[in-house]
């Protein structure tokens, strides 16, 4: 027996060293796979929220704002969710890289496949009736989050720039009604030339968006009206 093998076996004997259980390694590998899958799932939630926010955006409202189309596009990017997606793509890569055979694949292959999986799952989730509850809960409860995203409500909450949205609460007459905006403020709205669109029912409870001009503290003169979920 060689000196090294003798020393090694002696140390194994003296310190009562035993091989770690097979299950330890299976568990360790499983943890990395689990964290990888969790990262992909969170990444897909981010993708679904991004798609929701982009489809919910009024892409033509820039015409009524003092912004170029490019500036408006940059405003539409949900940076918060893009960053979340990047973080979890990185986390997914890290975990995949630490699985038993993860090192075999090139960095860009793993990232592209992860991104593809997140986009595929996120898109399916969106079309399968995605509930944007996380987004709404974050908007309500985390002020910092609201600073990172630009919502449709934010665009139609610029009365000084002539953009106002909310719910009709009371019809006064043919060309006057009361509206509650998304902060709960009440507005007296006057219509230009009785121009209430025919396709929108003129009744309380209807959610609308308006282009016009602020006339006073809580008075708005509406030049154009559209359904909240319709075109501006």
């Amino acid at each position, binding site marked *: *027996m*060689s000196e*090294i093998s003798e020393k*090694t*076996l002696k140390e194994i004997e003296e310190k009562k060293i035993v091989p*770690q259980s097979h299950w330890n390694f299976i568990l360790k590998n499983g943890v990395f796979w689990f964290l990888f899958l969790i990262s992909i799932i969170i990444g897909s939630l981010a993708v679904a929220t991004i798609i929701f926010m982009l489809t919910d955006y009024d892409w033509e409202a820039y015409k009524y704002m003092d912004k170029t189309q490019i500036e408006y596009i940059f405003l539409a990017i949900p940076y918060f969710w893009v960053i979340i997606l990047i973080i979890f793509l990185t986390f997914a890569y890290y975990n995949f890289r630490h699985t038993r055979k993860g*090192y075999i694949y090139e960095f860009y292959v793993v990232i592209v496949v992860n991104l593809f999986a997140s986009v595929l799952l996120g898109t399916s989730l969106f079309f399968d009736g995605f509930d944007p509850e996380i987004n709404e809960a974050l908007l309500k409860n985390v002020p910092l989050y609201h600073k990172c995203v630009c919502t449709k409500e934010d665009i139609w909450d610029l009365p000084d720039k002539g953009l106002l949205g909310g719910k009709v609460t009371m019809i006064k007459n043919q060309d006057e009604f009361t509206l509650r905006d998304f902060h709960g403020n009440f507005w007296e709205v006057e219509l230009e030339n009785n121009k209430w669109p025919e396709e929108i029912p003129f009744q309380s409870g209807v959610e609308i968006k308006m282009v016009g001009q602020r006339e006073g503290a809580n008075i708005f003169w509406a030049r154009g009206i559209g359904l909240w979920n319709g075109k501006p």
Partner: protein
Amino acid sequence: MIQNRSYLDKTDEELVTLSLEDKGYYKYLVERYEEKLLRYIVRLSGLSKEDAEDILQDVFIKAYQNLNDFDTGLKFSSWIYRITHNEAITHLRKLKSRPKVIIDQGANDLALNALRADLDIEKNIDKKYLLENITGTIDRLDEKYKNVLVLKYIEDKNYQEMSDILKRPMGTVATLLKRAKEKLNVELLKKSKNFI
């Protein structure tokens, strides 16, 4: 326990299975690899034989503790080289010293022949000069380049084995090796010009 002679016919993988049942068999794996791995540690680290033996003992203990993690889809030699590589690098980082490449004369000739053929620099560099300076030049390269050069030209490992030992994709290993040769080429040419 099997007889001394019969273990020679066993594959590494069979010896791993047997060692898990009876630790006595593990000595055959140790004996099979100790010389190669000791040489590898010395080549990679430049440590004394005694220090390298201490690292090697830790390697065998660690490998024994992790025997159940050995993936039979991998060559045992790649797996044990990986553990050795990591232990040697960890040890050197603790000592905060850069690994030094030490090439013994037998390996030097083989490595140099392979390297010379690959680098295609003989027409530009004096052969004697190349022989005297190649190890020092490899030693001054970045650790990542040094690792691939040692594995490829001194340990004679193929891309698959290098990928398994370094836990890097084969494409990355190939790129690293290409860059390592380019760097080595540039350094050797630079030094030989100064020499002339």
